[in-house]
């Protein structure tokens, strides 16, 4: 491959609103028609304009090649030889995922370890290829187009990968590669025999469907692969179907994901009635478009876990196997975010109240998500609620983007959108890291209850260190990546002083205060999580006998942990490389300063202070031995916050006493009950479910089972059609 990359990189000109949208607009197209013509020629706009007469092979190409003048990178084709085969790379990675699906299914009843390992190897290699491809597309700003299959004239399965899609593909690739590394070892410790082959196959299909959702270029293929993704994830959640809680979680998740697909379908149909095509092209402003936006927002919010549609998350994540929880929480929620961003950027012309709606939804989810997380004692449910919080933060960034772009402030709009996207990437990294390491802990201690863990930092030191990196990242502490994205959101909030409307400024400052609250509460939550799980003394027999997990189960999380650290330290540099100018502080310098201070302090102490060390018992007011029961439990740790936010938790306390005598002096017996009301379930979900059940019962009365009634229905329908057609004519 001989090519000459000529990097004439213009700094993106922020005064032009159209340039903001160039993030997703193609500036280079490689048009391939069918799989026969599989040579990709890199064409630059200069070649098109100047060399058209000189190079006859251009004559065969259609005139659909765009040449935009505000692109950032020019490719100049020079020398002989093949062009760069990026379409081949994409097809190879898809094929690797397909192989990973087929191989365990081919011998599905044989419980052979080699089948599953081969399947996961294909996942890892597919992710590697996809990751390299998306990195290339992201940095160079090129676009890949592939019209794969057209069953009918109106419906086509075609794919376009521009920078936005490439970003999300990179996210999928990194997480699925590391999860597959982990799952290759973890799956051998699950029970289920040959059912594990299905798990491995379905995981590959799940990742494949997510990739194709992101790569879709029209709403038809988007919906097709969205439904495939939903179906696969349902099968994956129901892996352990013998337990009743898993069945309940699976059915709940299935209903919610079908509801989300229903709303997305409704939105796409409304867009079709407005524009007449399935393309992701600007749809104009009208009543139907607004309705379509509401429907799509609902659909994506349900999938992303925005409050009040979040209830399926804390059931589905603990019930599914660990690698699947990591994939769902790290990647699948981001696919919903991608859908929202794609439709907002390419299809809709957002108005101000849309932005306010998204901002409010995001803020409410962020605050309530972390407040509910603090009450959880199941570690995976806690991580699930924390995912809800982070999705709220991403929606806050998207809401700010819409608000600033409707106020015609393109710089701030770009910073907010970049913050939301960067936070999606960071959350995928540290959340999957946390899920994988907590899965290792659950595997070692055979319980998900943090009150029965403890002291694991001595028995599982590597897992503890990796979980610690994840906890530091999610608590948004410098210089890791969680802080880098949150500081961008803070900067866009602080810069909102430039917005003209004063009442609106007050709203934004209130949202800022709530955002700061969620950030601090998440630090508290993860001090509690790390402290209860790893520190102090073991609080159950299994914890005191826990063993460190095998090396393969540490390698995946280790890669994710290094990604967290590197993304944080080099955040400012990363933005510069991709061509965006954001006012983020240089975290590398801060990291260097921190390291310098540590080294200096250690050096000073080495020479001036005493170096004697003695190991003895913890001070327990003179108690000779320290018991595990003396330490602060997880519940006790979050108790002050429980009491302060008691109106949010709505705990009901009931106290009944029975006495022997009239004056209520001699106590006979009593009951005391503390009940945590599940607010959303009792006041939102169950009433809706009951109403739909009643409606279904009412409708089912027409199904009487009697053939004569059905014949009557057919007769009436035929008469009605004849009359109607008669009126028309």
């Amino acid at each position: 491959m001989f090519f000459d990359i000529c990097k004439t990189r213009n700094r993106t000109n922020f005064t032009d609103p159209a340039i903001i949208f160039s993030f997703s607009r193609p500036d280079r197209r490689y048009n391939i028609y069918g799989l026969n013509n599989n040579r990709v020629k890199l064409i630059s706009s200069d070649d098109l304009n100047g060399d058209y007469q000189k190079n006859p092979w251009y004559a065969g190409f259609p005139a659909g090649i765009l040449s935009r003048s505000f692109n950032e990178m020019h490719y100049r084709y020079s020398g002989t030889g093949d062009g760069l085969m990026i379409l081949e790379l994409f097809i190879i990675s898809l094929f690797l995922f397909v192989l990973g699906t087929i191989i365990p299914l081919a011998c599905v009843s044989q419980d052979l370890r080699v089948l599953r390992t081969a399947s996961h190897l294909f996942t890892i290699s597919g992710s590697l290829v996809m990751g390299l491809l998306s990195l290339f597309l992201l940095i160079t700003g090129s676009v890949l187009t592939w019209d794969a299959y057209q069953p009918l004239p109106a419906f086509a399965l075609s794919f376009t990968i521009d920078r936005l899609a490439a970003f999300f593909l990179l996210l999928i690739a990194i997480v699925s590669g590391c999860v597959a590394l982990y799952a290759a070892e973890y799956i051998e410790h699950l029970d289920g025999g040959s059912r594990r082959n299905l798990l491995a196959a379905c995981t590959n299909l799940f990742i494949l469907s997510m990739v194709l959702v992101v790569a879709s270029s029209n709403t038809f293929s988007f919906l097709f692969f969205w439904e495939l993704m939903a179906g696969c994830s349902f099968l994956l959640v129901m892996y352990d179907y013998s337990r009743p809680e898993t069945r309940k979680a699976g059915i709940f998740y299935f209903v919610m994901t079908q509801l989300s697909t229903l709303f997305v379908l409704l939105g796409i149909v409304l867009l079709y009635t407005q524009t007449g095509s399935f393309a992701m092209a600007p749809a104009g402003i009208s009543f139907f478009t607004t309705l379509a936006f509401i429907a799509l927002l609902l659909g994506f919010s349900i999938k992303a876990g925005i409050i009040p549609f979040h209830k399926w998350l804390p059931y589905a994540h603990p019930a599914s196997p660990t690698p699947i929880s990591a994939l769902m929480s790290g990647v699948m929620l981001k696919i919903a975010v991608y859908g929202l961003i794609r439709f907002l950027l390419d299809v809709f012309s957002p108005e101000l109240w849309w932005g306010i709606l998204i901002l409010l939804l995001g803020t409410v989810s962020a605050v309530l998500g972390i407040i509910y997380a603090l009450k959880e004692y199941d570690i995976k449910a806690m991580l699930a609620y924390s995912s809800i919080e982070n999705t709220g933060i991403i929606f806050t960034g998207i809401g700010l983007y819409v608000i600033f772009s409707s106020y015609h402030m393109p710089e701030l709009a770009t910073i907010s959108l970049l913050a939301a996207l960067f936070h999606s990437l960071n959350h995928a990294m540290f959340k999957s890291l946390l899920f994988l390491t907590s899965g290792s802990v659950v595997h070692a201690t055979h319980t998900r209850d943090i009150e029965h863990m403890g002291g694991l930092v001595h028995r599982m030191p590597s897992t503890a260190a990796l979980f610690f990196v994840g906890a530091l990242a999610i608590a948004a502490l410098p210089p890791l990546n969680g802080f880098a994205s949150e500081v961008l959101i803070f900067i866009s909030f602080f810069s909102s002083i430039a917005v003209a409307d004063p009442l609106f400024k007050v709203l934004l400052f209130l949202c800022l205060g709530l955002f700061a609250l969620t950030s601090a509460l998440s630090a508290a939550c993860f001090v509690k999580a790390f402290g209860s799980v790893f520190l102090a003394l073991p609080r159950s027999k299994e914890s005191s006998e826990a063993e460190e997990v095998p090396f393969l189960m540490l390698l995946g999380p280790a890669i994710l942990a290094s990604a967290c650290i590197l993304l944080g330290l080099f955040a400012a540099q990363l933005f510069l490389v991709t061509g965006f100018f954001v006012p983020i502080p240089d975290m590398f310098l801060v990291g260097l300063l921190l390291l310098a201070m540590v080294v200096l302090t250690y050096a000073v102490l080495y020479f001036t202070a005493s170096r004697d060390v003695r190991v003895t018992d913890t001070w327990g007011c003179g108690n000779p031995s320290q018991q595990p029961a003396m330490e602060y439990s997880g519940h006790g740790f979050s108790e002050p916050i429980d009491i302060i936010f008691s109106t949010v938790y709505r705990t009901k306390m009931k106290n009944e006493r029975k006495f022997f005598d009239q004056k209520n002096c001699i106590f006979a017996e009593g009951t005391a009950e503390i009940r945590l009301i599940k607010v959303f379930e009792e006041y939102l979900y169950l009433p809706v479910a009951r109403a739909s059940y009643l409606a279904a019962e009412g409708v089912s009365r027409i199904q009487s089972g009697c053939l004569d009634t059905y014949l009557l229905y057919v007769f009436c329908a035929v008469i009605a059609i004849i009359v109607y057609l008669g009126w028309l004519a």
Partner: protein
Amino acid sequence: MNLSFGLYLVLNTLAVLLIAPLFVSIIKKVKAWTQGRRGPSVFQTYFNLAKLLRKETVFSSHSSWIMRITPLVSIAAVLVAALFVPLVFVPEPVGGIGNIILLLYLLALAKFFMALAGLDAGSSFGGMGSSREMSISAIIEPTTIIVFAALVFVFKSLNIFDMFAASAAAGAPSTPTLILLAISLFIILVVETSRIPVDNPETHLELTMIHEGMILEQSGPNLALMELSAAVKLTLLMALLINLIVPFGLSTTLAAGAIVIALVLFVVKGTVLAGVIGLFESSMAKMRFFRLPSLFAMAFFFSTLIIIIEVFA
């Protein structure tokens, strides 16, 4: 990164390390005077730190590497945070040093490690301290961010260096809202440095210690580092308040004379502020823990009021 910035790094760190124990002693002295005592000498904190460095370190058998590295990380985070708040000389900002949000989160980093170290040894005192500290810092966070947002609003910059340069150029508070902001900053200082009415820094009774509870298991040089980091945090928050409200004497050039004058003036201003803090602490009792949210809600509404005044003015 040029020479003046490098000099600033060294100068600011040395200044804050030398001055911090003095301010802690002055507060203790003022509190002792109000109680009718003579109190310890103003140099007592220095003697305490020197004594602690000579003692051996005792670790609990249940503690892990968290306990070993927390004092180092805590002092490093607080010292890097101190680089963000110029005491005597304001240089040009380099690479985001001086970003006000980064300052807040560096202090949060120190707090995170301290809270984990409290849980590490498995004692009830540490657990209680950690739990209460994380709850308090969560509830005061909205107020702190709103106050910082108001500062950004007034000074039109996210960087503390620019804020100090603007305030030094103006010479006196440029708008009346800065006085109101000073009151909010004072409340934040009391909360972040665990002073009465939020926490008693001189108690070791189980149910009344928050910050002290988390460092109860530390000993020897590690305890010296924790005490020093608390003192440096107090000094840098005092410097934030002083240099925004009464900035006269703050120098923007690297002249030796100007810096010496700025240092002496800062010590004088800091002594006055430390006296005010001591009197404030002596004038009230520590509040019951669950009455603190009401106090913080009042502070939050006060700060939001300042924002509304700024926005509509």
